[in-house]
């Protein structure tokens, strides 16, 4: 990969590009190669982020501020807030140098062309090299060049949220750290979104896939708020063995710009937000991906309201599930286990 190229289409990426574009972007590329439908979009490399910091002078300012601060270990939350605010301000108040801005705008233009749209609505998602769920920012429903550039800067700045700063300080990592890539995929017009685990995250039972879904965007599910729909599907038979229709009182939807929480209309609260055929399509992909990647997966997807089945299902993320896979233990095995442990 030539060092001239700072921005990549997802389909150009693979897992091995983790350090170049960040985990999430590499993951999107990996998903394309696995044959999973992914929203079209591009990835901004970490190198471009560094270029921005250097060329704008932000890097120099941040470094001298950091040197002034010295060792921050053991400070209180108030200090983290202050340090965070200062560092984020340094980044956000800089204008994007042409060398950085122009390639970004070129890709955005081409994306709009490919989609045959004027100002395509995209999301701007942080992509660090390590998996730090929820630590950095994501912006939804970003429209137009100006909005895009502003949100990209904000995502870059989110490397210095109070939480990220505290995390690094407490772990003894350098304050100036966590360089971020940025993923810019087209916004899916999410009729419904959700997550799926290819093992039961609670029991570790790997014979089943668990789905959770809500109307609207995945943020209405991933955040774990509100009552959502749940489906349990047996991998071997593809039978939906458990079906829980939650009381979906709230969900996250796109707005003119951005997205927000809204009330779900009464008549939609008690009906499933996914059709069985959609559930099974999601499950089948989950089984395939788990097999290909060789470990249980924690996956995010969205169902586009504008497209027909099966073209309406898009994948946003897949990563190894942090659950211990356990075979269901028989009563006899449990008794034997404890009887033996008595002696040890």
């Amino acid at each position, binding site marked *: 990969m030539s060092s001239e190229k700072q921005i990549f289409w997802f389909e150009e990426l693979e897992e091995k590009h983790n350090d170049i574009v960040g985990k999430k972007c590499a993951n999107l590329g990996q998903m394309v190669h696995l044959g999973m439908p992914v929203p079209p979009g591009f990835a901004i490399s970490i190198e471009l982020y560094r270029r921005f910091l250097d060329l704008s002078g932000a890097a120099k300012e941040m470094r001298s501020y950091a040197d002034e601060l010295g060792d921050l270990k053991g400070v209180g939350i108030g200090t983290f807030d202050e340090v965070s605010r200062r560092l984020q301000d340094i980044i956000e108040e800089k204008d994007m140098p042409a060398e950085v801005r122009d390639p970004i705008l070129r890709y955005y233009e081409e994306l709009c062309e490919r989609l045959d749209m004027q100002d395509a609505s995209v999301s701007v998602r942080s992509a660090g090299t390590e998996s730090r769920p929820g630590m950095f920012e994501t912006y939804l429903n970003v429209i137009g060049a100006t909005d895009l550039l502003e949100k990209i800067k904000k995502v870059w700045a989110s490397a210095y949220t109070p939480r990220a700063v505290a995390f690094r300080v407490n772990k003894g990592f350098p304050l100036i750290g966590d360089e971020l890539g940025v993923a810019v995929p087209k916004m899916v017009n999410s009729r419904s979104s959700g997550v799926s685990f290819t093992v039961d995250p609670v029991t570790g039972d790997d014979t089943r896939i668990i789905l959770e879904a809500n109307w609207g965007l995945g943020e209405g599910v991933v955040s774990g708020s509100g009552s959502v729909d749940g489906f349990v599907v047996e991998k071997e038979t593809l039978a939906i063995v458990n079906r829980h229709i939650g009381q979906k009182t709230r969900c996250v939807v796109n707005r003119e710009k951005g997205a927000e929480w809204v009330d779900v209309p009464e008549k939609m609260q008690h009906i499933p937000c996914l059709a069985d055929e959609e559930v099974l399509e999601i499950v089948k992909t989950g089984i395939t991906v788990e097999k290909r990647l060789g470990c249980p997966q924690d996956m995010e997807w969205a169902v586009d309201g504008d497209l027909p089945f099966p073209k309406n299902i898009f994948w946003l993320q897949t990563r190894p599930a942090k659950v211990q896979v356990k075979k269901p233990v028989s009563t006899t095995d449990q008794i*034997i286990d404890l009887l033996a442990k008595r002696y040890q």
Partner: protein
Amino acid sequence: MGENIGGRTALWDALPGYDLIEEVDLPEMHSWFLDATHSVPPWTPLFGWYWIRFCCHGMKVVCDELSIPTCKGWEMRYRDGGSYNAFHIVRDKKEIAERAVKFRQALRPWIENFDGLWESGKRELLGMYDKLKAIDLENASHVELYRHNYDLMNTYRRMFEIHFLGMYSSYSAWLLLEDLCKERFGMKDQDPEFQDMLRGFNNKVYEMDKSLWDFSQLALDMGLKGIFVQNKPDDLRAKLEMSEKGREWFRKFMHYLETDEVGGWRMRRMNDLTEPYWLEDPCTPLGVIRNHVLKETEDVFGNVHAELSKNREAAVARFLERVPPPERPFFEGLINLAGKASSYSEEHDLYCELISHALLRRGYLGMGRRLAKSGTIDQPDDIFMLNPDEIDRVLMVPDRHDLRFITRRRRAEWLEWHTRPNPPVITDRSGMEEAVAMDLLPSMDAVAMKIVVGELPEHKPELGADMFGICGCAGEVEGPARVVVNYEDLKEVQPGEILVCPGTNPAWTPVYGMVAAVVADRGGTLSHAAIIGREYGVPTIVNTFEGTAKIKTGQRLRIHAAEGAIFILDK
């Protein structure tokens, strides 16, 4: 080492290889614990030879086959008629872990099919017993008698190899359940809440007790009450033979003793050969039946059992409610297996010890009659003063041997042992507590801790009691004490009395219908006295150590079994 006689050192006497020799055995094992549950009163040499050799072997077999992680087997020694036990404790963590791997595999069949495995063990033993029964002792040739000596040894060895497998699997489950209940719910295996979940089971012993009661009802139905009331057990048989109804009843009764799987092949006293088995002397079961007739006892087992069974189900249901739902199947399975401990404890006594001891007595008395006839010994039961090697030596040409120099000396010694109790432990540690802590507890041996040695009672000074033991079955009663040391004295027990004894065994269960409570010198929560107490609903305290020494017949006692407390009201 040993006795110096005429320049030669005598190592062993009655039990070659198994007599206790302090100079060797103390440095090797440090502590030897008296099995007072079984070897009080003191054992005859022949019985001691059999039990100590083959029971010890059986323990080693189970520790090997099941690969018990912390114990490789027991050692047993004979001293003054007492059985002293020590434990081959595994202390090295790595070795414990290695043994645990095989333990898990070996245990599985017992958890999955306990009943099936025990059943096949029973079948094997009953087959061997049938072969032994086939010999015609009076008409057997010297060689046939000689071989019978070895057939008895072989059967008894195999009996003890089978004996412990079911015991360890079910008793381990009991201990595990107790650990978990203590840890999670503060419940101990002496608590009624715990014990109620594990009682109310049926087994062959209760079935036989019930059969005897049924015969008492049959006697009443057939109008035989008068004969039973007017005659002592010794005279009953003759008197019954004098009337047609009596003969009919007796025929039915003997048929039961002869044809039931166990029937009359059970010893009156479990742990020695000196008393008759039922087929030999039906006076014993006749006495039990007479007792039911005289005292108009209710169907103790039938009434109490149904209720205990129902209570058990309710207690288990209540317990499971305290358990988080995902763990309930596990606890249910464990409770089920632990429950087997109760039934197995009783049934194995019958199919293992009681029958084989009856066959030992029968076989050796047959040899004894032969040797008494030839003048080798004074009387047939002097054979119990010899060991099988000594018997082997003389059986082929008995008239050429005189062993009275051995039998007379040993009998005198044996009688002398009855006058002084054996110490509970022989140890080079600082005392009982240290001996238990270092040489017993680390074995994690269920049988040692719950039966043979038992847990040490907790003294609770705030209660102001005179004596403490551990709770075998909860309940509070008051009544006069009846101290019983030998089976003969058992017939003196009156309804409402509190039985004070060294321990109990299956021969004693008929008295449970009458007594208000039982206080035993030794035993644990899984020993016979405790299990029967729970099944018959009789308040029971075990392991007092000093009950029969300190309490006198007639003294009024108050028992608070749940606390293990005994109050002597008139001192």
